[in-house]
């Protein structure tokens, strides 16, 4: 629905191109390096995630891709165009869902889409048809003539996604698409994003919700302090950096002493002690014996959140 041009090579196979190519990309402010020479590629048709604590440089990277914040070093090509020289062309082919809700409060849901279409120079009849389609697609038909103030948080978010699709973008950039939403609204948006992906669209998103990243992303990077720490599929990252499972047990002197004696590595997570392992049952049995069933021992599959916290630490970020 949004993007469907596949170039084919002479043998008839499809060439999957790179939609974003960043090399040594840097954003330096006077006294701070927000993005510190990162290199990555986003392929056509994939959902690519940027994860990281606050201040990691995710949003700054998004802004450089959107051509609204000039880079200070490296190279960055979006849709085969240089961000320094082809800002208008690139912006014309992007759909952007910003972190902050910036819908136009002076207009209804429908007029918001029409006014936005005008910024892209979309002819009115086409814009009207597209706006109606998108309101239906985002299940907002009933709110067509309602002012923005009267919409719930989830509806506003859906309308912003509809707005980002008004120009039939080739690349969709979503900065925290489900921030502050209830579970129902999040699931609805996930469903929408998945159907956009199924239609072959390229999506780039940032998120703090690790379950969201695990569900949606084909590939992702975890950033911290302006650098990319790791890159890969969620499953690969979990396997490499956390192992298959986690055994959690209450943090007591006895357990710590025992594990240290055995030479088993463990992580401290508040009141809990975590052992990342590919042999969870052996570890659990061992721990149950040590605790003599005084403390609870839990075994669960490792998640992206475990990877994230192991890589970026537990210290609070502002």
């Amino acid at each position: 629905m949004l993007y469907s041009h596949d170039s084919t090579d002479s043998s008839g196979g499809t060439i999957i191109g790179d939609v974003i190519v960043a090399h040594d990309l840097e954003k330096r402010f006077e006294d701070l390096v927000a993005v510190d020479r990162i290199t990555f590629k986003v392929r056509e048709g994939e959902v690519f995630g940027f994860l990281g604590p606050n201040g990691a440089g995710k949003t700054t990277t998004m802004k450089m891709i959107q051509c609204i914040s000039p880079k200070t070093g490296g190279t960055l090509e979006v849709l085969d165009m240089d961000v320094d020289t082809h800002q208008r062309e690139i912006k014309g082919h992007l759909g952007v869902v910003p972190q902050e809700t910036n819908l136009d409060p002076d207009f209804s849901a429908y007029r918001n889409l029409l006014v936005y279409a005008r910024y892209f120079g979309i002819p009115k009849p086409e814009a009207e048809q597209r706006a109606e389609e998108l309101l239906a697609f985002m299940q907002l038909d009933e709110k067509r003539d309602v002012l923005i103030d009267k919409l719930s948080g989830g509806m506003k978010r859906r309308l912003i996604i509809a707005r980002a699709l008004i120009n039939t973008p080739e690349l969709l950039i979503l900065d925290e698409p489900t921030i502050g939403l209830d579970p129902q609204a999040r699931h609805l948006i996930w469903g929408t994003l998945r159907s956009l992906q199924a239609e072959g669209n390229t999506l780039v998103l940032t998120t703090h919700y690790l379950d969201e990243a695990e569900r949606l992303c084909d590939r992702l990077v975890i950033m911290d302090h302006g650098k990319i720490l790791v890159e890969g599929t969620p499953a690969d990252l979990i396997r490499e950096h956390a192992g298959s499972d986690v055994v959690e047990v209450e943090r007591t002197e006895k357990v710590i002493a025992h594990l240290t004696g055995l030479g088993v590595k463990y992580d401290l997570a508040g009141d809990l002690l975590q052992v990342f392992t590919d042999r969870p049952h052996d570890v659990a049995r061992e721990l149950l014996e040590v605790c003599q069933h005084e403390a609870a021992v839990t075994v669960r599959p490792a998640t992206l959140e475990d990877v994230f916290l192991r890589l970026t630490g537990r210290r609070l970020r502002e």
Partner: protein
Amino acid sequence: MLDISGRVWSVWRRNWDAFLRTYRVNFIPPFVEPVLYLLALGFGLGTYIEAVDGIPYPVFIAPALVSISVMYSAFFECTYSSFVRMYYQKTFDAIIATPVSIDEVIAGEMLWGATRGMIYATLMLPVLLLFNVVTMPSSLLLIPFAFLAGLLFAGIAMCFTAITPSIDALNYPSFLFITPMFLFSGTFFPLDLLPQPIQYFALAALPLTHVVSINRAITLSAFSPLNLFSLAWIVVVTAIFFVLAIRLMRRRLIV
């Protein structure tokens, strides 16, 4: 130097659409204001004033009322209203995510401020005609000139908006710049009643002085070479502030 294309009008149209949505409120001031001022000052206070330079007092202040209205509407549009759109509503952020450039956003805002001044002048004209205080057809020139005068005040306003730390700080130019202009630009008494140094100051630094001078020539249908000087002053200063506003806004918004 400036990155401005026809897309500037999509920004202007956004404000026009929003203005029309609340037109009932927006159309009240240009009708009510001149009536109040003419009744209170022109025909109230004015009964004690025989004539100013041989001109009946209500006729003397009529062009000033238009000038003041243009100044207020354009200035407040591009200070408080633009600041709300920029800072609170994040409307500028939303627009620059599209092929519209930041230069076009700011230029569109200023052109809209000028348009708003022109709309107010247009709506005031029939009221002034009703009171028989302006001459026709020369007074039709009030309308196109209101656009230029509006652009002048919009540009000045946008510079303040670009450097203000908060919406409250916009009160400084409003009270320290706009209010003195309202009183000391040859609006309600002729400029030559003031001490000579202040006259020169008004001509050099108070844009409204030149606007009132031209509007008065228009409504009296009495033009002089001095009007050309005022016109040139306005064109040059408008151009300077137009460019300066865009540059200051770039510095504020593109980081």
